[in-house]
């Protein structure tokens, strides 16, 4: 059998072919990325300086007036506070609960494989399904939560968790954390397997209590897992629109609006696309700052722990 011919002319031809196929194969994903991500992003920036209502082709440039309006929009400030509450809670609750569950399941608890599966299951469900499940749990007349409270207290209890402004946002945060905890737990469990058992055994033989071992040995050695958990929780919390949309839609009367929800309502319910775009620009800048801070901290952690 004759081998391939390696003349310089053939080599140049093959290189040309490779370049051609590289372009051909890269073009579709780049086009999709440009059309679905880059173009809408740039469009949002553009429309944030207009008074476009989404329907009309006759719209005007209004300069910075949409951004000025943000400062007088009380719902924007309420949404900002809710966004901070949402992000901090969505970061802390699943992280802490995931760590506690991982520590419990890493010990020799009977049926830990079963519990691992149970705790991980919610992450396999879509946010819409999780939202619907929790709507049923919170249902005031026959929901699981109120029924449970009634069973315990013996009194009639009909609190409408999702319909009251004081509890709506926190009720959604609990549903969100319930789903996300499984992910943190699995990452921490993987991190725990990487901790050498000799260190834990020697610290135990030198009289370190369980609490001291967790605080001074396990948690510091789980720093890389924590980094991953925080990164994922942060990204997921920024994306956490769907569950809020399903469970409260920002209601009752805007009390659980986050910035993303406020942007959606202004754009698609009030038909103020220009103003909605300016909110999305502010949201984009906030996300950029948070991610910037996160990467800076990540570098510091890398420098300390290698």
């Amino acid at each position, binding site marked *: 059998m004759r081998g391939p011919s390696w003349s310089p002319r053939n080599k140049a031809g093959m290189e040309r*072919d490779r370049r*051609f196929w590289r372009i*051909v194969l890269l073009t579709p994903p780049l086009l999709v990325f440009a059309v679905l991500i880059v173009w809408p992003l740039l469009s949002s920036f553009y429309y944030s300086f207009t*008074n*476009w*209502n*989404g*329907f*009309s*082709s*006759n719209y005007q440039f209004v300069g910075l007036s949409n951004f000025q309006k943000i400062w007088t929009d009380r719902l924007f400030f309420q949404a900002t506070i809710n966004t901070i509450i949402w992000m901090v809670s969505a970061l802390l609750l699943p992280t802490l609960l995931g760590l506690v569950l991982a520590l419990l399941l890493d010990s020799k608890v009977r049926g830990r494989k079963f519990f691992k599966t149970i705790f991980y299951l919610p992450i396999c469900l879509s946010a819409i399904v999780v939202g619907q499940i929790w709507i049923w749990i919170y*249902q*005031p*007349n026959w929901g699981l939560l109120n029924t449970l409270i009634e069973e315990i207290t013996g009194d009639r209890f*009909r609190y*409408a968790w*999702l*319909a*009251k*402004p004081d509890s709506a946002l926190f009720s959604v945060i609990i549903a969100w954390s319930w789903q996300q905890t499984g992910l943190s737990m699995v990452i921490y469990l993987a991190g725990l397997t990487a901790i050498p058992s000799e260190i834990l055994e020697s610290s135990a033989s030198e009289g370190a209590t369980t609490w001291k071992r967790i605080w001074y040995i396990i948690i510091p050695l789980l720093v890389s897992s924590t980094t991953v958990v925080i990164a994922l929780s942060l990204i997921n919390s920024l994306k956490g629109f769907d569950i809020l949309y399903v469970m409260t839609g920002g*209601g*009752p*009367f*805007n009390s659980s609006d986050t910035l993303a929800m406020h942007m959606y*309502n202004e754009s*698609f*319910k*009030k*038909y*103020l*696309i220009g*103003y909605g775009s300016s909110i999305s620009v502010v949201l984009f800048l906030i996300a950029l700052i948070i991610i910037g801070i996160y990467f800076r901290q990540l570098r510091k952690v890398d420098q300390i722990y290698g």
Partner: protein
Amino acid sequence: MKYINRRTLLGTLFALAFIGLTTPALAQSEVTISHYFTGELGLKAFGEQMEKFEAATSYKMKNSPVGHEDFKTDILVRASGNSLPDVFSYWAGARVQFIADSESLKPIDQMWNQAGLDKIVAKTVADSATMYNGKRFLVPFNYHYSGMFYNTKVMADAGITEMPTDWNGFLALCKELKSNGITPIALGSKNRWPAQFWFDYLLLRSAGPDYRAQLMAGKASYDDPQVKQAMGMWKALVDAGYFIESANANTWTDASDQVARGDAAMTLMGTWITGYWNGLGLVPGADYDFFPFPSIMAGVPSASVGPVDGLVIGANTTNPKGAEEFLKFMVSDTGVQAAWSKAQGALSANVNVDASNYNSVMLKAFETVKNSDAFAFNYDLATPPPVAEVGLSMFARFMDDPSRVDEIMKQTAQDVAGAFKE
């Protein structure tokens, strides 16, 4: 491994481009449509009416239904992407006005006149629902009436034989029901809009249709004594415990179920509730009935409230002829109109539809609208969308804590004034 050579690839791309270029020519016989009739009965019935159109003409319908609430967003997204369907369903009133102002609709005056729709469409509906900025844009497909729907057995068990016609009679009815251990009124305001009918009727019956029209157009304020009076009457009903607990936690179907089960006696809702209840096996007249919202002030014209579902044509339609044919057929064909109104629990927009097609409750609704002095669109269709958003939130906020009514109304007046400037 066999490579595709460049010639083959380019040849394939050219072939695909050719197919793409020739497709619009083939699509001339296709009419694209998007609509919000997605309830189990509505979706099936609308599909059947489209089949009748296809059978009667050479056109094919390409259907893309979207859920009622999602439709409000979906149609905006499609408009902003300049990809509106040839035909879409829409709510007559401020919403059509909004897109007509944006020049996103095709006028249908010529088709309307040629088809003689003036003689086919009910005049009260045609006058209020089809004209915008001096041109005709919408063909009414059906309309609804909002009334006080009640459980006949619950009323009979409480010894109530006569339904009230005035406000004092209504208060006495609520008192009687409550003393019998029955919650008089169910309301499911989770999605906010079901609460609007209370505001609509209280204001219409106390301040009259002219004042309400001014308020809806931004020529009156939510701080006015007329609005305060209407809200005061609403508050008195809530304070007396006549409304069911946690209205904001329930949807309109939850409230309908509460009445159907007898957990509450009545609910203020549109005639679409009849389609829902009939689907549950309730018998019109025997299991449920309705009475018109009682009069409050003597001398105030009686107005009926409800939405008109219409069909409109996108300004950039690629098949205007097919789209117009479809609109004409759907309102003119009495078979389509009769079947549709029956399935949807709606009133027909076509005056030639035989009234015997209606059940006893729908016939009563038809007569009530016919004998009304005016027909008014419900709140979220009567005022521009940015204002409607403020008002709908106000109703839900009020239902959550009526004791803060003054503060709520003050805030609403400010927010509405801002929204009218948008």
